[in-house]
C-alpha cells in the first residue's frame, strides 16, 4: 500500500513543474516589496449632507481635520477621536443632541478616563463609539 503511495508521489513530483507554472515568478512576487502604503485617512464617510446646517458642520469638520488636526499631536484618548465622534453623533442624532453628546465626550477626554472603557485592539485607546439608534 505504502509503495503505491510512493509511486503516486513520484508521479506528482514529476508533474510539479507543470502544476507550479501558474505561480508568479519571484520578481513579480517581490516587485512591490518596498512600496509605501498611503496611510492618509479619508473622513468624507463621516460627513453628512442631509440638510444645510449639517453640510456646514461637515465642511467645518473637514477643514479642522485637514488643516488643524493634521498638525496636532495624537492627544485624544479615545477611538474614534472626539472630532469623528462629534460628526458621527450629529449624523446619528441630529445637530442639537449630537453637539450635546460631543460636548459630553470632550469632558470625558482626559488622562484619567482609562479603566472605564474597553481597549480598542488596533489603536490601544479607550473604545467609545457612538451608540446607534435602535
Amino acid at each position, binding site marked *: 500500500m505504502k509503495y503505491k*503511495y*510512493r509511486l*503516486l*508521489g513520484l508521479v*506528482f*513530483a514529476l508533474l*510539479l*513543474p507543470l*502544476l*507550479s507554472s*501558474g505561480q508568479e515568478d*519571484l*520578481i513579480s*512576487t*517581490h*516587485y*512591490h*516589496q*518596498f*512600496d*509605501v502604503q498611503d496611510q492618509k485617512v479619508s473622513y468624507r464617510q463621516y460627513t453628512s449632507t442631509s440638510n444645510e446646517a449639517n453640510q456646514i458642520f461637515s465642511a467645518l469638520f473637514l477643514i479642522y481635520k485637514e*488643516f*488643524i488636526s*493634521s*498638525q*496636532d*499631536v*495624537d*492627544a485624544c484618548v479615545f477611538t474614534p477621536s472626539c472630532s469623528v465622534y462629534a460628526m458621527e453623533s450629529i449624523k446619528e442624532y441630529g445637530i442639537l443632541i449630537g453637539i450635546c453628546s460631543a460636548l459630553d465626550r470632550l469632558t470625558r477626554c482626559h488622562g484619567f478616563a482609562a479603566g472605564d472603557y474597553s481597549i480598542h485592539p488596533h489603536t490601544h485607546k479607550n473604545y467609545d463609539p457612538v451608540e446607534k439608534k435602535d
Partner: protein
Amino acid sequence: MIITFISINSGLLSGQYTADSALSFADQQYLRGNYSLALKEYQRVSFHDNFSDAYLLFKIGDCYLNQGDWTHARYYYDQVIRITHDDSLLVNAEIRNISTRIQEEAYKRALINLYSVHDTVYRQYNDEINLLFGITHFGLTEFDTSRYYFKKIVETDSLACAKIDSLFSLKKMLYKPNPNLAYALSLVIPGLGQLYAGDVPDALNSFILSGSLVGLSVFVAYQYTLLDAILSILPWYQRYYMGGLENTNEIAEKKRQERRSSIYRATLDIIRESKNKQETL
C-alpha cells in the same frame, strides 16, 4: 461553483474514495484557485491515508501560502525540506520559505535561511537565490551588498550591470531626505523640515498654524500680560509645534522610502529585461 458541486457529488455518489482520486480532485481545485477546498482535500488524504509524502506536504504548504497564511506554509515547507530527496521539491520549498520571510519583512531571518540553503539548491538556482539575497540586503538597507547580488544575476549582460551601477550610485535617492535633518530643521522653524522633505502644502500648513499662534501670543502679551500669553496660548503652541515635528519625521521617512522603492523597482525591471533578452537569444 457548479463544476465544484458536481465534482464533489459525483465523488460522493460513486462511493469510491481513493487517495489518487482525492489528490487529483485537490489538484484541480488548486489549479482553479479554490485553495481552501484544495487544502481540505490534501489534509483529508494526509489524515485518512497516513500519507506523509513530500509532494502532498508541499501542496498543503502552497495552499496556505496562497491564502496568505505564511506561518503554516513555512511549517509544511520545513517538513518537505527535511524529508524530500527530490531536488525540485527541495528548491521550491526552500525558495518559498525564504520568500515568505521577506514578505513578512523579517529580513534577518531570511538571511539566516539563505545562508543555510542546500548547496544543490544554490548551484541549480543561482539566480533565484541571488535575487533573494539582493532583496534581503536591500531590506536591511545594505545597498552595496544588495547591488552586488543583483549584478550577479545579470553578470553576463554588461549593459544591465552598468544600469544597476548607475541606479545605486544615486546616493541622494537612497539616503535623502534624512529624517533626522528634517526634524532638526523643523525644530528651528516649524515647516522647514517638511519643505526640505518636499511636502510644500504641509510645510505651509505647519508654518501658518504655528506662526499664527506665535502672533496671537505676542498680541495677548501686549494687550494683557506675558503670564496671560503663556497660560492661554503656550499649551496650544506646544501641541501644534510638537505635532509638526512628528509629521516632519514621518514625511521625510516616507519620501525616502518612496525613492528607495523606485530604485528597487527599476533594478528589478532591468533584471527582468535582461533575462527576457537572454531567453530570446
